[in-house]
């Protein structure tokens, strides 16, 4: 055992039993591996005898944690007989003075938990109200922009187009291409069973242009740019930049929400088109390799298989997706509270909500336009 290890020695002096405390009773020592267990065992193993004398004079060093440990062992009161150095006594006195029962953290009762279910409803309506207000503000801002187009935040707008659109081109092309290849391979297996190989053009063309391309692009952009929008605006809340804007009289909707929403509504259909083309190229390649359907046949038959109205539907749909992703991103960004935890929660909620909403709205489009283009 080392000299500095905190320990207890029981002596029997002429005036009764004596407990000598030795070693360094410091946080650094007590938190070394295994030390606390030994100390606790030796403290617990002490026989409860009245009139025992505690001798702290040979302790090498006593800090607050060591003093607290002894104080707790003494049952939060002074032992009957105690011998200390003056500064050890000062340390113990400080611990004694500040030893209070911890404030209780009030737990919620069952009734309050039941009531919190109702709070959930209020929370949802609160979100809905905020979102509605955001949309209304966006419309007002668009009117203002239409009246004075020269005063619009065009630099922000083009910057967002670049960030949301141009920088997303490689990843969306890669994902689209691979999905096209996978889809073509899977359907080719099934079509061959029926000898209906040439219908791969119809299947790929319709599913990719009408559904998969737009949804795939929207999900990717929601994860990529929706989260970025929430994080940007959220950080502005944490660093009080939003408050600074308000103080300067710069409207948040006009400068933050509108350029993002507009950029998203324009970039999203373009990205969707790009993803669809990449997926079709992948599918075309796979069809050539697996079924021997040449790219020229594929391209010639595509207009016959898929009506142009599908393209218009996809474009309109993705513009709505983009608008929704931007609005949801801004909505959660503006609701971030000035702490880092809320920022993380807001970003997560933003991505999850926007992906869910994209799929919901897509289903809505599918039902409403079921007679068009098929």
């Amino acid at each position, binding site marked *: 055992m080392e000299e*500095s290890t905190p320990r207890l020695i029981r002596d029997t002096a002429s005036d009764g039993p004596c407990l000598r405390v030795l070693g*360094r009773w*410091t*946080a*650094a*020592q*007590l*938190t*070394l*591996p*295994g*030390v*606390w*267990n030994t100390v*606790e065992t030796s403290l617990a193993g002490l026989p409860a005898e009245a009139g025992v004398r505690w001798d702290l004079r040979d*302790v*090498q*060093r*006593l*800090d*607050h*944690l060591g003093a*607290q*440990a002894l104080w*707790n062992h003494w049952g939060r009161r002074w032992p009957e007989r105690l011998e200390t*150095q003056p*500064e*050890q006594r*000062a340390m113990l006195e*400080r*611990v004694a003075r*500040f*030893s*209070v029962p*911890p*404030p209780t*953290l009030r737990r919620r009762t069952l009734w309050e938990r039941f009531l919190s279910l109702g709070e959930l409803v209020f929370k949802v309506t609160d979100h809905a109200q905020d979102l509605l207000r955001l949309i209304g503000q966006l419309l007002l801002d668009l009117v203002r922009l239409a009246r004075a187009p020269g005063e619009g935040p065009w630099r922000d707008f083009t910057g967002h187009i670049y960030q949301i659109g141009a920088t997303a081109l490689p990843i969306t092309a890669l994902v689209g291409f691979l999905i096209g290849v996978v889809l073509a391979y899977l359907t080719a297996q099934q079509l061959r069973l029926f000898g209906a190989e040439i219908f791969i053009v119809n299947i790929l063309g319709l599913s990719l242009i009408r559904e998969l391309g737009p949804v795939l692009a929207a999900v990717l952009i929601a994860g990529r740019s929706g989260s970025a929008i929430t994080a940007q605006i959220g950080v502005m809340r944490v660093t009080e930049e939003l408050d600074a804007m308000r103080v300067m009289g710069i409207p948040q909707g006009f400068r933050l929400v509108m350029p993002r929403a507009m950029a998203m509504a324009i970039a999203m259909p373009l990205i969707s088109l790009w993803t669809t083309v990449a997926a079709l190229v992948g599918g075309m390649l796979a069809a050539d390799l697996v079924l021997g359907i040449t790219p020229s046949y594929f391209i010639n038959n595509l207009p016959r298989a898929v009506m142009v109205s599908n393209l218009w539907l996809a474009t309109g749909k993705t513009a709505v997706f983009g608008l929704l992703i931007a609005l949801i991103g801004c909505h959660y960004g503006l609701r971030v*509270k*000035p*702490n*880092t*935890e809320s920022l993380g929660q807001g970003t997560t909620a933003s991505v999850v909500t926007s992906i869910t909403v994209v799929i919901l709205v897509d289903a809505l489009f599918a039902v409403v336009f079921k007679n068009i283009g098929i």
Partner: protein
Amino acid sequence: MMPPTASPPGNPPASASPGAEARPPVVDIRGLWSVFHKAGTDTVVHKDLDLTVRQGEFLSIVGGSGSGKTVLLRQILGLQTPTRGNVTVLGKPAAVLGTQGAASRVGMLFQHGALYSAFTVLENIAFSLRELKCLPEALIRDAALLKLQMVGLDVKHAHKMPAELSGGMIKRVALARALIMDPPLLLLDEPTAGLDPESADAFCNLLRSLHHELGLTVVMVTHDLDTLFELSTRVAVVADQRIIVNAPPREVIAFPHPFIHEYFLGERGQRAMELLREYPFTV
């Protein structure tokens, strides 16, 4: 193992000033160079800088803006590696300071508190102790409550989140967190910046009494001359990319250098100097 620099039992807390030179160094900086590369040009911040902080000192580092005071503090903490030179803290290189149990060697009060915003006040204070996972929860909680009250906060604030605290309270909680394992060395970055005069005074008194009672070695970076004269037992002045003087405040003021003349004997300095007559530097 604890480094051999903590005061042995029986010694009075570091209040006695005689024999200061004999006390062991806690921070030892030798031949330090800090060079920053930016846009193709090198900026030399420190050039062959030496600094020794001895046990029990309350050393203030002063210097103009951009003279590298905070950089120096970060280098002492091992957060930043100097371009050249050695930084020894408690007998070990600063780079190995941040290993397990670092909270028992050095405490740092960051300028803006740096409280973990996801934790309550009590969890923030107890964090480093709890992470070692060897003490019982009740003892950790008691130790954290003790430090909370030692920095002058009421226990009713224990379950608040950092976002609910005022600036002065954030500083106090951050100080309690830095002190949880009673480290022998405490570093302070602008401890009174952003506090109202009353809070700043209260915080100064708190720091002074902690320094006195716990025998801490303190290194402080500050621009506040009142705080400087109230607390420091020594002042180190960073100018011309090195420490031009490291001495008790009275000697520093008398040191002939244009920067010191401007810094201490300007209009603001004169006002703070009144304090010199009030506080006889016995802390």
